[in-house]
């Protein structure tokens, strides 16, 4: 096989909605999915604090046991036929998105560590020439202290990766705003 050279990324642009944002891809759980239901709402902001209404958030996460529905995950944990771990959400005119899913279990990390429960996010938007990648962690998780990715982040920026309990919602409601730029810029990862 001849080596091949990587295809460069280009922006998703402003007109991806009809092609990519589909109701079937927003449904991460059904009535029989195992695990604690959670809702995460948030808004995406630009460097002026203006809402980003033409962005898309993709979620990739493990199931409630802490296993990814993927052949590379060979852990002896249960797969859930009612959960595949992927969801895709467009932002509305206020830059808002809403993820309804289950809280993931802990998955293994580098060098025999255990990662704290997290959702992996890819964010696409007009004006982003490549996706940006971040993670949503949960408040009060003991594993947050030892999580390898969180610990790679300067301590004063870690809070941008931890969802807030949404006081306006139920106890299983979280808030996670994403700041592409500015004083509260979210931490993005180079994976």
């Amino acid at each position, binding site marked *: 096989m001849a080596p*091949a050279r990587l295809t460069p990324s280009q922006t998703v642009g402003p007109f991806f909605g*009809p092609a990519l944002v589909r109701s079937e891809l927003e449904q991460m759980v059904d009535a029989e999915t195992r695990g604690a239901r959670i809702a995460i709402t948030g808004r995406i902001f630009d460097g002026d604090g203006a809402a980003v209404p033409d962005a898309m958030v993709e979620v990739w996460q493990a199931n409630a046991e802490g296993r990814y529905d993927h052949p590379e995950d060979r852990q002896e944990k249960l797969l859930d036929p009612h959960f595949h771990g992927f969801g895709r959400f467009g932002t509305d005119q206020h830059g808002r998105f809403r993820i309804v899913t289950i809280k993931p279990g802990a998955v293994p990390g580098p060098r025999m560590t255990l990662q704290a429960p997290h959702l992996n996010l890819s964010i696409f938007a007009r004006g982003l020439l490549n996706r940006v990648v971040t993670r949503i962690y949960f408040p009060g998780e003991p594993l947050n202290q030892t999580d390898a990715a969180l610990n790679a982040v300067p301590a004063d920026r870690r809070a941008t990766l931890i969802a807030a309990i949404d006081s306006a919602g139920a106890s299983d409601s979280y808030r996670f705003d994403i700041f592409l730029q500015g004083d509260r810029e979210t931490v993005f990862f180079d*994976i």
Partner: protein
Amino acid sequence: MYGSARYRREPIGTHPPLDSPAYASTSKRAPRCAPVRIEQSLSEITGPRPCVTVAPAEADLTRWAGDAAMGERIIVAGRVLDEDGRAIAHTLIEIWQANAAGRYRHDHDRHDAPLDPHFSGVGRTIAGANGAYRFMTIKPGAYPWGNHHNAWRPQHIHLSVFGPALATRLVTQMYFPGDPLLALDPIFNSVPDGAARARLVAAFDPELTEPGHALGYRFDIVLRGRAATPAVG
């Protein structure tokens, strides 16, 4: 706990820098802090495989709402490969594009070119076991945009591809050979490396061309390959 090889780091100059001043929309949206490099874990070497049922008709954009779309029919085909030239099998490919007049079927497209009642501009397919894919579509038109005075986007088709892992996810745009607007386009030219930029331009391919029906363009999509040494635990 897992013994699979991680994905190679992406070569410098292949992907555009997020802060590319010639593309004005990057100025308020490109993060200012460098991304934090993390070791790939199970979270990155696994990735989504959307469970969607795709009808064969979704790879043919030349008919919609009961009749034929206007414009020049073209075939866009190629293979999804990794950097070692290995086929990436059964991955979802989603495309979207303007119609022949340069207009998207989208509420926010204010260009006064006509909509085509028989063109949605949206297609999907799943690559075969050998990574091969094929769309039949209409050659998109160029269109003006507000980036700078008299700015026009070159003819292009947007593509979204998953590949096997979170690390391989790619959204890109395919361009056409010989388009004079390429030299002027800040999005195309945001790719620093000239050879990498050239890989965004499809090749006219007589072999793909169907006699009496449609010209063929070849566009291979190459995603990240795996490092030679397996990661341990």
